[in-house]
């Protein structure tokens, strides 16, 4: 069983994603939070194997949450999810120790697959998102 934490401020999306992933035999959603600054506490308590982190959340964003999580619960791998790619997101996500980066509307079976891959130590990067994160904006190369 792969234990999952889902962090997303969009309650309807979070609920639907949790329900969809819960339908997979080998996945179990053990925690749901709506704010970036609740991720670490929830992870300490529920010991997830993989955390699905939305990028844009109140409190702290998903990228910052991923950084904190890496130190606080190093056994938990991170799969970032987002609606839009923005300049620098991908680079920051990888620098924050995330193992994957996909769009939120990824079909559930593919998303479940991404979770499994990340759990087994592989990297998963959505190609469209990668393109968006790299090409959108003025100068992605000088982006901090």
């Amino acid at each position, binding site marked *: 069983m792969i234990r999952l934490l889902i962090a997303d*401020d*969009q309650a*309807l999306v979070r609920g*639907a994603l949790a329900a*969809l992933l819960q339908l997979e035999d080998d996945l179990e959603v053990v925690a749901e939070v709506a704010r970036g600054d609740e991720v670490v506490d929830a992870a300490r308590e529920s010991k997830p194997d993989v955390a699905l982190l939305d990028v844009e959340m*109140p409190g702290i964003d998903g990228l910052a949450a991923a950084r904190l999580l890496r130190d606080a619960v190093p056994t938990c791998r991170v799969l970032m999810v987002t*609606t839009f790619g923005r300049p620098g997101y991908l680079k920051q996500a990888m620098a924050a120790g995330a193992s994957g980066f996909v769009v*939120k*509307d990824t*079909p559930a079976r593919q998303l479940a697959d991404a979770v499994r891959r990340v759990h087994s130590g592989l990297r998963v990067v959505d190609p469209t998102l990668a393109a968006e994160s790299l090409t959108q904006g003025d100068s992605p190369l000088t982006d901090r």
Partner: protein
Amino acid sequence: VLLAAAAVWSFRLAWQRQAKLMAAERDLSELAVEEERARIARDLHDILGHSLTVISVKAELAERLFDDDPVRARAELQDLQRLSRDALADVRSTAQGIRGISLPGEIASARMALESAGIEPSLPTVADDVPSRWRELFAWTLREGVTNVIRHSQATRCEVELDPAHIRVSDDGRGPCPDDGSGNGLEGLRQRARLAGATVTTSPGPGDRGFSLTVSVPA
């Protein structure tokens, strides 16, 4: 001749300075309008992206639950209808600019307005779980609440909480002063709320500081 030249010269200088000042002001206000529009367009665009994301995820869920949990599948389908209708209404009223008011549009403008006023905003990024019938009232609440925070509060932070049953605009400013009774904003909002069957309350903000405006709807 020299004197005349000097007079003309100094006159021109003054005139030029004035013209420059006016031009600079116009540029600044044009720039502000322009930036505001760009901002709002981008935020709106994001919020619509969010709506479409919920729609796609819920459609998938409805399909997966179809056989095993038909009751829940139907509920998802009803959500889908509401979500798509609301998103359509948002697109249309925003495309009309000032004539319409939409909840996502107001969230976007609130961010812009607060930041311009040097007040740190903490705003919801999504509005899709607010039922259709309350969206317009919540949008007006947001507009009046944030306008008041900017005009009266002297706050450094403004937080907006949003859930299906209430919206709250709070700040950490100086709180209400003895009301001179000249304002219409809150009274107008109370009337709107009454017509819709909702209630308006004002109180000190979080930690007993500042001001807090709440509109609650019946369960």
